[in-house]
C-alpha cells in the first residue's frame, strides 16, 4: 500500500477512521456505565477497570496466543471489579463516588503491578473486517478497516436501548434506579439489582480495555488509557442514559480524539498537545452546556447521587 496524496480530504477521512477506531472503548465503557447508573449507582472506578482490563487481556493473549481468551479474561476481571464496587457500596455511609476514585487508583496500580512483564512481548490482535476493500485508495481502506468489537458495540447499544424499554429486566433496573422505595414495595431488593448492574457495567468496561491493548493502539503500556473511562462517565450524562445516545456520543468523542493525529498526518504539527486535549475540552464544554442549576437533568435516574 503506497500512500496517494489526497490533500486536505485526508483530514475528514482520517477523522472518520479515527472516530471508528477511537470510539470503541468509549462505547463499551459508556454502555456499561449506563446500565450501572440506570440502577441508581455511579462507578467512577471504570477508569481503573479499563486499565486493568487492558492489561489482563494483553497478558492472557500473550500467554495463550488467543485474543478472544484475552477478551474473556478482561470481561471477567471487569466483572470482579464491578461486583466488588457493588458489594462495598451497599454498606451504609460508604460513598459510591469516593469508592470509585479509590478503585480507579487501585485498578491502575494493580494493572501496573502485574503488567510490568508484558510491556515487551507482543500479543495477537483482535480481527478487523476490511469494509474499504472496494476502494483503491489506501487511506480509505485504512479508515474503513472496522474491528469486530465496534460492530458488537453498535449492536449492543441497539439491544440495550430496546431492552431497557421492553424487557422485564430492563424495567427492574430502571425502577431501582428511580426509587429504591418503590422497588422495595414491589418486592425487589435494590442492593442485589445494583450489585448485578455494577458487575455487568464493569465487565463491559473490561472489554473496552481489551480493545485498547489488543487492537488500538494495540499494545500494553502504562499510558494506555488517559481518562477514557472517566470521560465515558461524563458521556453517559451527556447521552441522557440512553444507550443509542451513548453510541452517538462515543463516535463524537472518538472523532475529537482523532483530531490531533489526523492533523498530524497531513503535516500540521503546531500545537499538537492542544489538539490532544480536544476530547477533554469537548467533554467539559458539553457538560457545562447540558447541566442546569435549576432543574434535574431529563431522564436522570432519581437515585443517582451525581446529578443531585
Amino acid at each position: 500500500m503506497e500512500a496517494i496524496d489526497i490533500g486536505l480530504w485526508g483530514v475528514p477521512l482520517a477523522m472518520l477512521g479515527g472516530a471508528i477506531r477511537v470510539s470503541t472503548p468509549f462505547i463499551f465503557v459508556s454502555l456499561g456505565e449506563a446500565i450501572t447508573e440506570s440502577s441508581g449507582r455511579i462507578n467512577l472506578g471504570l477508569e481503573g477497570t479499563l486499565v486493568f482490563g487492558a492489561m489482563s487481556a494483553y497478558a492472557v493473549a500473550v500467554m495463550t496466543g488467543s485474543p478472544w481468551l484475552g477478551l474473556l479474561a478482561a470481561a471477567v476481571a471487569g466483572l470482579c471489579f464491578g461486583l466488588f464496587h457493588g458489594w462495598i457500596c451497599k454498606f451504609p455511609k460508604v460513598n459510591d463516588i469516593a469508592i470509585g476514585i479509590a478503585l480507579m487508583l487501585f485498578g491502575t496500580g494493580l494493572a501496573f503491578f502485574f503488567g510490568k512483564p508484558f510491556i515487551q512481548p507482543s500479543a495477537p490482535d483482535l480481527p478487523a473486517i476490511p469494509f474499504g476493500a472496494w476502494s483503491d485508495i489506501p487511506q480509505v481502506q485504512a479508515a474503513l478497516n472496522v474491528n469486530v468489537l465496534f460492530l458488537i458495540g453498535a449492536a449492543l447499544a441497539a439491544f440495550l436501548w430496546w431492552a431497557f424499554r421492553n424487557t422485564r429486566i430492563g424495567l427492574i433496573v430502571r425502577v431501582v434506579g428511580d426509587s429504591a422505595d418503590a422497588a422495595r414495595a414491589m418486592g425487589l431488593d435494590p442492593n442485589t439489582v445494583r450489585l448485578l448492574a455494577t458487575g455487568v457495567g464493569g465487565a463491559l468496561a473490561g472489554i473496552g480495555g481489551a480493545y485498547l491493548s489488543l487492537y488500538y493502539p494495540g499494545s500494553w503500556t502504562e499510558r494506555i488509557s488517559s481518562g477514557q473511562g472517566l470521560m465515558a462517565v461524563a458521556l453517559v450524562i451527556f447521552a441522557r442514559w440512553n444507550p443509542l445516545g451513548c453510541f452517538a456520543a462515543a463516535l463524537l468523542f472518538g472523532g475529537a480524539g482523532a483530531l490531533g493525529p489526523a492533523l498530524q498526518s497531513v503535516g500540521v504539527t503546531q500545537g499538537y498537545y492542544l489538539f490532544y486535549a480536544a476530547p477533554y475540552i469537548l467533554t467539559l464544554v458539553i457538560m457545562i452546556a447540558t447541566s442546569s442549576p435549576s432543574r434535574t437533568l431529563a431522564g436522570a435516574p432519581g437515585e443517582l447521587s451525581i446529578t443531585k
Partner: protein
Amino acid sequence: MTEAVSGTDVRAILDARGYRTALEWIARRAEAFVIPLAALVAGMLLFSLFIAMVGKSPVQLYETMWRGGFGSWFSIQNSLSRGAPLLLAALCVALPARLGLVVIGGEGAIVLGGVAAAAIGVALNGAPSFLVILLMGVGGVAAGGIWIGAVGALRHYRAVNETISSLLMAYIAIALMNHLVEGPLRDPASLNKPSTQPLADIYRVGNIPGMEVHWGLVVGILACVLSWLLIEKTRWGFAARIAGGNVRAAQVQGLAVGPLIVGFTALAGGFAGLAGMLEVAAVQGSANGSLAAGYGYTGILVAFLARHNPLAIIPVAFLLGGIDASGGLIQRRMDLPDATVLVLQGMLFIVILFSETFYGRFKLFNPDLWQRPDSLKGTV
C-alpha cells in the same frame, strides 16, 4: 421534668452529668482516632496477604518500608520532603470537602502553578530575589486558584459535577503544560527532557537550616494550620460547614453560598498551585513533565485518611510521604515493580472509605447507646 428536686439531688445530677459529658467527649474523640488507625492496620494486613500471594515476604516488605521511610535521619528527611507537597495537595481536597464537594483534580492546579511560577521566574530574571520568589508564589497560587475556583464556580452556577470536571481539567492542564513546555516556553538547551529555562540559583527556594528538606515543608504546615483556623475558628469556616451539611438550609439562613464555594475552591486550588511553585522553585529548578508526578492523586488519599481535618493532614502526609519514599528501596531490595506502592495506596484508600460505615456503630464510642433500655434502642 416537673417534679421537685432537692438541692443535693441537683448537685448529684450535675456531677453525674459533668462526669458523663467528659466521658462522652473522650468517647467521641476516640472514635476519630481508633477507627482510621484500625482501618490503616487492616489495610496493611490485607496488603501483607497480597504480598504473600505474589510470593514475597510481608515481614521483609514492612521492614524495608520502615527503613526506607522512617528508619534513619536520612530517610526521615526524605519522607518529609515527599510529604511537603502532599500537605498542600491534600488541602486541595480537604477544603472543598468541607462544603460537600469531591474535588479530585488537584494535579492540574499543581502543574499549572508550577508552569506559572517558572514563567515568572524566567521573565523577571535580574530582579531582586525576594521579589521574584514572592511573585512566583503569587503566580502559582493564582494559576491553581483560578483553575480549581472555576471548578467550584461551575459547580455552583451551572451544576456541573465537580468530581468529573476537576479531573477533566487536570487532563487539560497537563496538555497545556506539555504544549507550553514543548513549544513557547521551551528551553532550546533541554534536549531529551523538554523543560522551561532553568531558574537562576538566587531564585531557588533553599533548605531549612540544618536539614535536607526545603522550606516547602514549613509552608505546607503553616497552610494546614491556617486552614484549620479558617474552618474551625472563623465565621467563613462556620458558614462553609453549614453549607457542607445542607446547601438549602445555608441559603435559607442568608449565607452567600456561591461566593463561599468559589472562595473555598479557589483557596484550595491556590494551595495546590503553591505546591507546584515549590516543586519548580525548590526541587526541579524548571517546569517540566515531572510536575505531573501524581502528588495530586496521593493528596486525595491523604485528605480522606485525615477525614478532611487540616491538622490531621500533617501526620498523614508524613506517613504517606514515607511510603512514597520507601518505594525505590522496595523495588531494589525485593525485586517488586514500582507500582507496589500504588497498590498499597489503593488498598488503604478502599479500606479507609469502607471504615466510614463503622462510625457511630460501636457502643463504646457512641454515648447515645450507653445504658439504654433495650426497648428504646433504635428510636433516635
